[in-house]
């Protein structure tokens, strides 16, 4: 993917420049947040948020708090379960749609009509339908990733060079063979890309669902989204930012994991 190409053109000078921008950003943040104390005037917008130093302070305290890591765990679990189910349902569905024209004609328009409905809009319906809160969050998470994965699988399958298929047929391959050895591997890069994007969306949905459905009853609830929301409600603003950054890091980690995993399945892409 092009992002990886950009990242690999790495040099000391580039790293240095990137760092400068980040440092300036943090400096402005620090100064702006402390502006009331420093210059007696509260800078608009930035002046209302806690400074980075306070955030780090708070974070240091949280790192030793087991409930903080519990939140991490819960969010991660939700993301991965929802995502996994989305892959298990979405990839076969996408592939079947790609292979069978009739099924595509039946299923795709309905799929396309449902797709613009944001997953979050499903939350109330989901809560009504599923017995536990956990399952309703999982369902919404599943939806988020599901659409992206199917679209990417379809896109990948459509762009398979017809000549590959023809070559296989002329060499005497059966339908099953063609599917397993040509269509599946050729679609893998798109699946990998779709997964990476889908992962980002999954995190968005999980965080939102956690915020919306609140602490929940019966032990469900929690997670990093809830952590942020309760920090807000409880007035500890530094923790809000800790939560934000934590989710950012968690999201990044899961995307990287997925990319590495995807790379194992598609070694031929590395030669591009």
């Amino acid at each position, binding site marked *: 993917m*092009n*992002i990886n*190409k*950009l990242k690999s053109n790495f040099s000391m000078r580039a790293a240095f*420049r*990137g*760092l*400068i*921008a*980040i440092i300036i*950003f943090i400096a402005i943040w620090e100064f702006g947040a402390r502006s009331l104390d420093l210059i007696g005037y509260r800078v608009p917008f930035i002046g*209302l*948020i806690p400074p980075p130093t306070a955030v780090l302070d708070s974070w240091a305290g949280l790192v030793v708090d087991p409930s903080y890591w519990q939140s991490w765990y819960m969010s991660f679990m939700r993301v991965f379960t929802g995502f996994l189910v989305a892959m298990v349902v979405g990839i076969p569905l996408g592939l079947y749609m790609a292979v069978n024209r*009739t099924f595509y*004609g*039946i*299923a*795709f*328009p*309905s799929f*396309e*009509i*449902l*797709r*613009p*409905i*944001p*997953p*979050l*809009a*499903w*939350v*109330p*319906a989901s*809560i*009504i*339908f599923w*017995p536990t809160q956990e399952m309703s969050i999982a369902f919404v998470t599943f939806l988020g990733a599901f659409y992206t994965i199917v679209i990417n699988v379809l896109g990948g399958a459509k762009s398979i060079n017809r000549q590959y298929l023809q070559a296989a047929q002329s060499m005497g391959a059966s339908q099953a063979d063609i599917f397993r050895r040509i269509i599946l591997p050729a679609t893998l890069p798109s699946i990998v890309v779709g997964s990476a994007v889908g992962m980002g969306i999954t*995190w*968005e949905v999980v*965080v*939102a669902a956690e*915020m*919306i459905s609140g602490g929940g009853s019966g032990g469900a609830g929690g997670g*990093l*989204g809830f952590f*942020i*929301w309760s920090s*807000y409600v409880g007035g500890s*603003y530094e923790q*809000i*930012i800790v*939560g*934000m950054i934590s*989710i*950012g*890091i968690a*999201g*990044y980690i899961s*995307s990287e994991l997925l990319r590495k995993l995807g790379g194992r399945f598609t070694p031929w892409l590395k030669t591009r």
Partner: protein
Amino acid sequence: MSQSNTTMNLTMYRMSSWLKSPKPYLMFIGFGCVLSFWYFSVEVWKLPRFQDMPALTEVFEEWFSKDPYYGLSIYTPEYYKHIGISLRRIGYAFFLATALGVPLGLFLGWSQKLREYIFPLFELLRPIPVLAWVPLAIIIFSGSETPVIFLTFLASFFATTLNTMLGVESIDEEYSRAAYCLGASRWQTFIHVVVPGAMPFIFTGLQISIGVAWFSLVAGEMVSGQYGLGYIINTAYIMVQYSQIVIGMITLGIIGYVTSALVRVAGDYMMQWRVRELALGGD
């Protein structure tokens, strides 16, 4: 002019050949399956899980009734007020995000130097889910409108900038080389090669961007804010007016689809060359 004629003729041709194919019938079979599943599971078989779900008939009765039980149908002005407010928010956020994101993306893609400075910071902020910004947005911005628009803007902005930047990266290097050969300066090459060349990618990015915008808007409206389609859904849930939930969802789906299609049409209009090239199947 012959340009719009070609597009018209193409559209007419495409539509008529679509109607003659089995596609529309399959499509309706699909819709039929979904809708009948909904109908049967709630109203006929009365499956246990589906007990509290709003029924198909109930929803459509409500949606199309002149005097709806819960106050929202296609005949009530309220309905359109909510739609209008959501659209207005999307409008502000999307256009602001495009106005800032496209130029930024173009420059980031074009200038190695700028990219080295700014992209790491950008990539650091991007993974933070837009909705995680909700509390911060509420703290920073006063009122209930601005935070919602800000969140929507943020989501759109990241998507647009990233896709634009990737678009510039994808332009074949030979085009800018040809421009240099012909005597163009760096700036002229930027205007005449990079910007038009990135257009297809920019518009794909904009379609993604508007999808993301709706996503964030709904979340924002559900959490804070008054009026709007997300608000309807949330309120309907709280007030146990379940058929309204579905009306809200369906409306969202339709409006979301329409706005996305508008972006695509705008793209087609601005890139006549591409429409004609694709229509002829290239060479």
